[in-house]
């Protein structure tokens, strides 16, 4: 089942921490919702470092990152 992390409106580095916690729990895929390019890039960088495949989907002026192993 998809794990959903809604990190919209949260300031740096909380989106990264929430995504990290989700990765640590080990269930995939993970969908991380963010609303700034900064958060998008920070989450992407962290997830790629953890060995995840990251797909970025733009939704209006927000972003959904789909993390998979």
């Amino acid at each position, binding site marked *: 089942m998809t794990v959903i992390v809604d990190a919209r*409106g*949260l300031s*740096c*580095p909380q989106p990264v*921490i929430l995504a*990290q916690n989700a990765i640590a729990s080990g269930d995939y895929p993970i969908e991380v919702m963010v609303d*700034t390019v900064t958060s998008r*890039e920070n989450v992407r960088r*962290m997830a790629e470092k953890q060995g995840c495949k990251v797909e970025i989907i733009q939704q209006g002026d927000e972003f959904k990152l789909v993390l998979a192993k």
Partner: protein
Amino acid sequence: MRDRLTKFFASRWGIVLVGAIIGILGPLLQKLGNPPNMGICVACFERDIAGALGLHRANVVQYIRPEIIGFVLGSTIAALTFREFKARAGSAPIVRFVLGAFAMIGALAFLGCPWRANFRLAGGDLNAIPGLIGLIIGIGIGVWFLRSGYSLGRSQKTYPAVGWIFPILMIGLLLLLVFRPVFGEGAPIFFSEKGPGSLHAPVLVSLGIGLLIGFLAQRTRFCTMGAVRDVILMRDVHLLSGLLALLAAAFATNLVLGQFKLGYAGQPIAHSNLLWNVLGMVLAGLAYALAGGCPGRQLFLSGEGDGDSAVFVLGMITGAAFAHNFSLAAKADTVADGVVQMGGLTPFGMTAVVLGIVVCLTIGFTMRQKTA
């Protein structure tokens, strides 16, 4: 083209290049007139603005610093160009105001923001080292709070006009700088005739460099607090590589320009009181970490429409006014007849730093969301 630039700025080389550019421009601004070892100091410069507006009356630190205006407006230009301007606000603004005020009180106990701590070190001022150690401790405490669920809650998307308020305030400051109105006898706008406030590069140079740095920093998310935080939090050295590039480039530029002077005592606009250099920056670092950005980053965020960061900046400016009105800011070492007179904090200043740390710890402990 735009996407490729965005990718480059997000890369390791992007942040290193921007760090190095800031590192060169800081000492260059000193050469062109800015105060020694203070090429760019966000905290000091906001304090000077508070003084120019008459919010405090320390007549040696009053000037409307164009660099600050440039940082915000440069960031606005970058955000508009790359379609990242986004008005948002509403994440515990009163807490951000308080954090900003105490961040400034901490910074003025050390005499500098993290940018200046690095510029001071690059100029040979070894007092920067206890300051930086304090900064790391403060940020470390902040990371512990972040890990245990600290959050100021979500901001909300809002009317574009909200995001424009702070950039427009900066344009207002620029007009005050250009036209220099005097609002009455002995009334603002004040411009220092002696002391650090009287030392400044030509207005257009300062403004131009500010705009450039604001633009580049918005693109790369350059943040001195984030640099340390990301290493502690997730062993990520991305932002740190930018900060180290700044330090190295500033060091090299100071050597070339003959501005390097190694030592502890009698350094320009600095004091050599070890304990309060550390504790001042513990307070500042903790406040930056809890607010999510160093003073520079808060300006860049304000420029791209973040109303909460703008409140933090206003808190800093208010904190600067209190710091000088209540004699909380540190006195610099002075050299008279070859004898160094050690500066430091008044008992009021020491009390304020301790109070600030207690307030920040209370914020950290009481504003945690239950993690599932």
